[in-house]
């Protein structure tokens, strides 16, 4: 019947559902971008150095807690980021020098065990320093509040900023890898690390740099994500597992794969939360299983 006005209640229900779905999609994308930050570091370390680093999630946690401490000192998340990045980098380099560099000739099993030991140590250190209660980190005032997207729904400005920052960092990473000398060394190291050494490049230093950079990416993720969720012990573990799933889906060593994989997972997670709230996490693993059956080496990786 043309011309009959639709009752107001139905309209608002429809737009409520739309809001929910759109919000979830945006959340999923933003989560995916954050996940990409963390996972790209992991895939680089795995691809170039051949090291499984289970403590990768602990560096995300480090970032989150650094955010807590530094923001309470500086009152600004971006200052915290600026200060936190060098701290995380130095700490990562120290860990590589102390422990990780002994793992290069060892098998997977020993890498897994040693980095598992690191998780235990880091978790306890976190408890000792910051305690077991959850904390929250304030959003900077100039980024608080929401904005209307497409005139349809409100979405928090800070989350948009986070997504934007992740994209900027992703582009910067791509630039470094494709256009700079160190990027060339990284790309070369991925295909033939012995030859890099033979040509006169100290791969020990290169690896230290790659490891420190990789975990710093995770820490950066932790820093900027802190105001969104609260900061609590164990925050690193789910990031680790999900990052591992991203690397499996995307393919070891592939930053492009990590990007696609992370976004896929972000969206799958959002999809799951909307339609199967009880089994949202299961969606992610189902996705991984599907990819593995179709392409055992991951979407962009070499065949397993």
């Amino acid at each position: 019947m043309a011309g009959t006005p639709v009752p107001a209640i139905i309209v608002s229900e429809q737009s409520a559902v739309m809001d929910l779905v759109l919000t979830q999609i945006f959340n999923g994308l933003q989560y995916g971008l954050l996940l990409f930050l963390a996972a790209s570091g992991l895939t680089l370390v795995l691809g170039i150095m051949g090291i499984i680093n289970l403590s990768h999630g602990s560096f995300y946690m480090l970032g989150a807690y650094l955010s807590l401490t530094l923001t309470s000192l500086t009152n600004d998340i971006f200052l915290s980021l600026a200060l936190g990045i060098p701290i995380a980098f130095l700490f990562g380099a120290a860990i590589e020098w102390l422990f990780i560099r002994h793992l290069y000739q060892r098998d997977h099993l020993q890498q897994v065990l040693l980095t598992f030991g690191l998780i235990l140590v880091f978790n306890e250190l976190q408890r000792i320093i910051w305690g077991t209660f959850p904390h929250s980190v304030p959003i900077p005032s100039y980024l608080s509040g929401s904005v209307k997207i497409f005139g349809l729904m409100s979405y928090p400005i800070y989350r948009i900023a986070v997504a934007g920052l992740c994209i900027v960092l992703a582009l910067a990473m791509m630039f470094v890898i494709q256009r700079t000398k160190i990027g060339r060394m990284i790309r070369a190291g991925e295909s033939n690390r012995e030859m890099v050494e033979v040509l006169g490049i100290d791969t020990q230093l290169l690896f230290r740099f790659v490891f420190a950079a990789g975990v710093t990416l995770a820490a950066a993720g932790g820093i900027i994500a802190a105001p969104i969720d609260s900061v609590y012990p164990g925050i690193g573990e789910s990031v680790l597992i999900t990052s591992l799933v991203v690397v499996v889906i995307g393919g070891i060593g592939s930053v492009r794969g990590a990007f696609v994989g992370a976004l896929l997972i972000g969206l799958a997670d959002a999809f799951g939360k909307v339609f199967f709230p009880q089994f949202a996490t299961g969606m992610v693993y189902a996705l991984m299983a599907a990819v593995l059956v179709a392409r055992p080496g991951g979407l962009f990786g070499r065949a397993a």
Partner: protein
Amino acid sequence: MLSLPRPLVAVLLIVLFVGMLLVPFFGGSYAIKFATRVFVLAIFVVSLDFLIGITGLVSFGHAMFFGLGAYSLYFISPETMAANALFAFPAALLIAGAVAAIIGAICVLTRGFYFIMVTLAFGQMLFSLFHTSRIAGGSDGAYINIKPAISMFGRTLLDFENRFTFYYFCLAALAAVYLLALALTRTPFGRVLQAIRWNEERAGALGFNTYAYKLLSFTFAGAIAGFAGVLFATIDGYVAPDLFGWRQSGIAIMMVVLGGAGTLFGPILGALLYSLIEEVLKTASWVGPIASHWSLALGLLLIGAVLTFPKGIAGLFGRKEGLKVSADQPHITRKVEDARRGQQLEVSGLTRRFDGLVAVDNVSLNLAPNLVHGIIGPNGAGKTTFVNVLSGSMKPTAGNIRLDGENIAGKPAYVIARRGIGRSYQRTNIFLPFTVRENCLIAALARHPSPWRLRSGIFVKQESDAIAHALNVTGLSTRADIRAAHLSHGEQRQLEIAMLIASGARLLILDEPLGGMGPEETGRVMALLRSLAANHTVLLIEHDMDAIFGAADTLTVLVEGRLLAHGKPEEIRRDLAVREAYLGRWGESAS
């Protein structure tokens, strides 16, 4: 390969066992409960060592089967009476095994890092399933009101509420599981698993369906882990989702590695050691305030152990690598009259492309049986790629390969191997940690490659004859008990050939078998290959022009992936195109 524990170790284990028999008489009820827990954990980690140490599959999700076994007891136990252990325990085992088969079917498709991550992810999936849902009390866990008992015909024979009884039951179970696992490693199935651990590609090329073997191993290990889980649930009568978690899996790996992966007894010691350390760090009075941060100390200990004792406790009992005189004398050369003929190979239009580079370009070739066929050509001409496609380690982009009339193009390597093709590799590709005899044994076992071989049984004589013959004919009999890694380069090349002979392959493809051999050895090997041609078809890639021109019946010249010429050696030598493209100066001087 894994052999029975050395006398020193066996004595230690027996002493430990006897000691454990006596503990309940001297220790209090806490000690009994502690020890029972250790036994159950030990069962769990023995199953994990079967996966990691024997099969080479590093699983980071093994605890999920432990958890499934535990939760099975919860689901099976009635509210108000004891479950019948005769039913509940096997049920837990079967449930865990069934889930392991399903999850394993997916996981075992992957290798290396991917396998670790996939198993981790599945473990987490199960964890989150039980943790976030309302199943069995969710994250709070659930209680089993009455512990199971063994009853038959309505009479209770063993009541597991009784700590004493359950203690001995678990101890017996541990001994049984250890002996079962040990026995399994000595069956053909178990030996092939070990071969897969050290060189899966080679095992597949010999004819074993490595996927099936790995899946069976995964299922078995999962079932035993489930058994451990149901026992664990019986100790406390309480189950929680943490049982599935990756931390549990990680601790299990810790116990396996600290104890000594691949020894089966080492992880038992690892479980004991870990439990003692945990107990001391948590409760000893001198630890004081650190006690609440005991996992910090554990983490540091773990890191230190990985850095300084990679082989674990069992590594301290390590056997010295050396000559072990074999107890049984090798059979005297009884010429194994092989009434079989070699096979006929017809290749048509075979092509293999890699991303725009055509490595093998439309090659068509007929190779008659019972002859020595040489393949020559410059490096990069596609010879090895051609051979890879023939043997199945690569799929062709186009073309057919007919072996005695049957088209085998594109089939997996292990299927092609079972049809009778055997190959040796340019870079020695053997099982380095195994002895010469053990390498040949694996090859001989490939004659009957089914994973269900649990008894050496009826084929033993045929196999040991094949091994003895292979060793004799390649001159390796006196080196039979030396580890392959310690052989000289030339001896390793000969071992490659011995494995082919032992495997009973009928079309032999040899990729540069003469590498590193002096004139006498070269002569011997070429004579051997000629004698093998009597009942095999031999395909030979070589660079040694003298040897190959002297021994081959036909020669095929491949250049840049294309077949340039094929015919008798004299014809090839006179062929101008070949001379120009490849033989160059050599061809001129020889004419």
